[in-house]
């Protein structure tokens, strides 16, 4: 599991996750998003293209990050989910809250 944060400028950060986003890694995602927002990048795009599995705790971390970003006047968006992630978003109705962008670079310029 790896997190890579890239500063895109204009208050935008891309968080790239590789591996499984589950109950073990979820707390770290929340920390990464919180740190990014605290550093002034309150528009966070989460790149899910290399996430091969997500569970409800992973989704929970995305929602937690969304709250953190919104309260700082920013936003959290998700991009490039694979089939499994898409299915989980559907089953939990999260697709009605979060728009899945095709690529992280589009998330705030779509």
């Amino acid at each position: 599991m790896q997190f890579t944060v890239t500063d895109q400028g204009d208050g935008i950060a891309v968080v790239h996750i590789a591996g499984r986003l589950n109950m073990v890694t979820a707390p770290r995602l929340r920390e990464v998003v919180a740190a990014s927002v605290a550093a002034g990048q309150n528009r966070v795009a989460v790149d899910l293209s290399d996430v091969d599995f997500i569970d409800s705790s992973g989704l929970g971390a995305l929602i937690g990050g969304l709250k953190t970003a919104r309260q700082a006047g920013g936003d959290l968006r998700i991009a490039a989910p694979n089939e499994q992630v898409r299915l989980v978003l559907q089953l939990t109705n999260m697709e009605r809250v979060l728009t899945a962008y095709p690529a992280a670079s589009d998330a705030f310029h779509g």
Partner: protein
Amino acid sequence: MAVPVRSARSAAHLLFLRVAVLVTVALGANYIIWRWFFSLNWDAWWIAVALVLAETYSLIDVALFGLTMWRARDRELPAAPVPDLTVDVFITTYNEPVELVKRTAQAARRIRYPHATWILDDGNRPEMREAAQLLEVGYITRGPDWQNRPLHAKAGNLNNALMSTEGEFLLILDADQVPLPHILDHTLGYFNDPKVALVQTPQVFDNVSAGDPLGSQAPLFYGPIQQGKDGWNAAFFCGSNALVRREALMQLGITRYVLEMERVVTRALAGAARVLDRAGRADDAQDPIVQTALHEVGAAIGDTRIAIAAGETIGNATYTLQQRIASVSRDLVAVDLRLLTLDLAAIAELQVETDADSFIPAHSLELLAARDLSPLGALESVQVLLRSIDVDRADEAQPLMPLATISVTEDMATSMRLHGLGFSSVYHHETLALGLAPEDLGTMITQRLRWAQGTMQVMLRENPLLQRGLSVPQRLMYFSTMWSYLSGYAALVYFAAPAVFLCFGILPVNTTALEFFLRFLPFMVANQLLFIISSHGISTWRGQQYSLALFPVWIKATTTAAANVVFHRPLGFAVTPKTRQEGTAAWHLILPQIAVAIVLVVSVIIGVTRLGLGLGEPIGTLVNLAWVIFDLLILSVLVPAARFRGSTTKESTP
């Protein structure tokens, strides 16, 4: 006490039980139909109707009990758990003595299956933190996010801990529930079935003295009743000594979050439009800049509604709206400053007027004071609404609340929602933890009141009969527990009816003695047999006594819960003193019951006198005397309870 409580129920026993259920319900129906249609004494309708309603209540109660027992299930010990599962053991505490929590934490550390132990200290006590460090167990308290936001008691405590831990399974223990070392070995195996979200084990107390004067042990509930519910996949969560699957809880948290956000946003959008309309029409909102701002906000809201209707996610729709509102707000700051100067000028004028001839234009003063009448005030209230059109759940400490916060008994509401999502539950009938029961009547009454209030809150907020995801038997199983808490009203009638007859000779039943007994006795006998068969050797008399004798508690629970849910009044917990009043019995806690007992005894005297004078009807008097004696036997449970001073051997009191 630490011996596993297992008793296999044979197929023959189950068959016998089902016959008893059918016979009881048939005889009960026969009796109650006759009571409603052929024996009501309309001349004394006030007591006659009350009595037949109480009897109908009891028959429904028995029928629900019969349904519960219909598929009572004994489970075999599950397969040994697979290795490498991750488990968090949560010990929840608020104000229990540190020593007591330490005792539980030490036992938790000795649980054999690998796990992490955490003390969830809602009291945020330094000495508890220190104790946790010494014991090398985790320590969790609420973070700054919870400041000035609803704490949600134990549900909030658990929800907070869920976010900072990562075990696949959670064992939840109250501060006083000391677990046995094999608690996980005997329960984790159930989770091999991915649908299983919850495993509940009994709550048993080892500080209860012989005879259990306070009725702390609940052998009928943590036994036949939970086993019966288990047969319908409706065994429910009781807050402690239970294992929960984290994934199920989190899934619940997320689906509830989505539901909640959709509801809040839809409602707020509609509400904001109304507020804008009102603000725009106000006489003093005619400033052109304010009008433009209001117009822009209105347009933004309209666009948001259109976007959501067209399939935009609420995340994006609300973000776009918030950005537009932010720019409108920036424009308004200038206006705000200008109006503020105008306000000051107006106030200055008023003061001059007041000083000059002490004439106070009350109307104008009120206008100025009521900020929401001024254009900015109106816009401010609009802003409050707009702020709620967001997906950040700003009013709560965390966006996900997996454990239900709609009730003070979060456990029952949570398991009902888990069942609604299609998960299943298990009742494992083996004592795997030993707790401490209340040691005085006051604490016991407070505890029962809380359970009853919580159950009523769930019934009023999320009535199980109306929950779509639940099967019909599941709905009835949850409803059954709620129904049983309405017994206070029936008890009142059962105490009043014989007293009314003995004192005034008024009989609510219009019949001959023979007809009455022919219908009533078979039902009563079948009913008692059903209880004996179901309880399978467990004594249920103490439980029956308390279910009637605590009638003021049940009545108070229903009224306060209704006031809470409907009128948003606080439940108003009675705070019980931590130290028992030495040397005095707790008679003051049971004044209504004492009053009832006095009325019953007086009515016996009057009844016997009336019989002696030839005024009373002999058979009726006899029946009602027997009834009063039964009532007094029921109430007698409170005498040792009020005098009880706790078991002397225990040093700690929860």
